[in-house]
């Protein structure tokens, strides 16, 4: 399949360590923020989302933090595994004035066994 994210920022972590992937978003009117994982040859896969009125949400091994003051979003992955290696995108959804989704540039995560 095709390769995604050839020239993206890269984060390399050791298996078992925690990973933190950061994202700056653009629109203070966004309603939802979502993290996606994309493996080569596949479409983006939903990981976790957070509404704009929250600042933290936890899932299984993942936590999303939202800082609206500085328009910053982060994804924390606990006990990173080789299967977590992929390109990660943050996205913001806004519905005011018509639905729109904006994806960030993406970060490639490498997990070393």
């Amino acid at each position, binding site marked *: 399949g095709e390769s995604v994210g050839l020239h993206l920022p890269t984060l390399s972590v050791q298996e078992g360590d925690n990973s933190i992937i950061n994202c700056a978003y653009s629109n203070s009117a966004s309603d939802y923020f979502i993290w996606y994982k994309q493996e080569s040859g596949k479409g983006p896969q939903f990981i976790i989302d957070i509404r704009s009125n929250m600042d933290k949400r936890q899932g299984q091994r993942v936590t999303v933090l939202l800082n609206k003051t500085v328009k910053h979003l982060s994804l924390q992955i606990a006990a990173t595994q080789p299967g977590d290696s992929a390109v990660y995108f943050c996205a913001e959804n806004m519905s005011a004035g018509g*639905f729109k989704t904006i994806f960030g540039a993406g970060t490639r995560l490498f997990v070393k066994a």
Partner: protein
Amino acid sequence: DAGVTQSPTHLIKTRGQHVTLRCSPISGHKSVSWYQQVLGQGPQFIFQYYEKEERGRGNFPDRFSARQFPNYSSELNVNALLLGDSALYLCASSFRDEGSGYTFGSGTRLTVV
């Protein structure tokens, strides 16, 4: 249950031609969105449809159009193809027309020569 299915998976077209890409959403999903993903970049939002109505449009020229059928499947049409239209075209579906929770298909790889 089948996920989001897109056809064809790969396509080669000549400059100036037109193309129709197809998407079948997950059963019960009423919202469909289309994205363009150029190699090395995040997906760019093109359209969103809900209950056969256009609910959102990204910054794409009028050569791009779409529609949603009564069975909630969707088509993306691109006229007067340019070399720069070469990309992975992704379709995503959701039960709702807001928020997140979109499931992506694996995309159609379009190459314009």
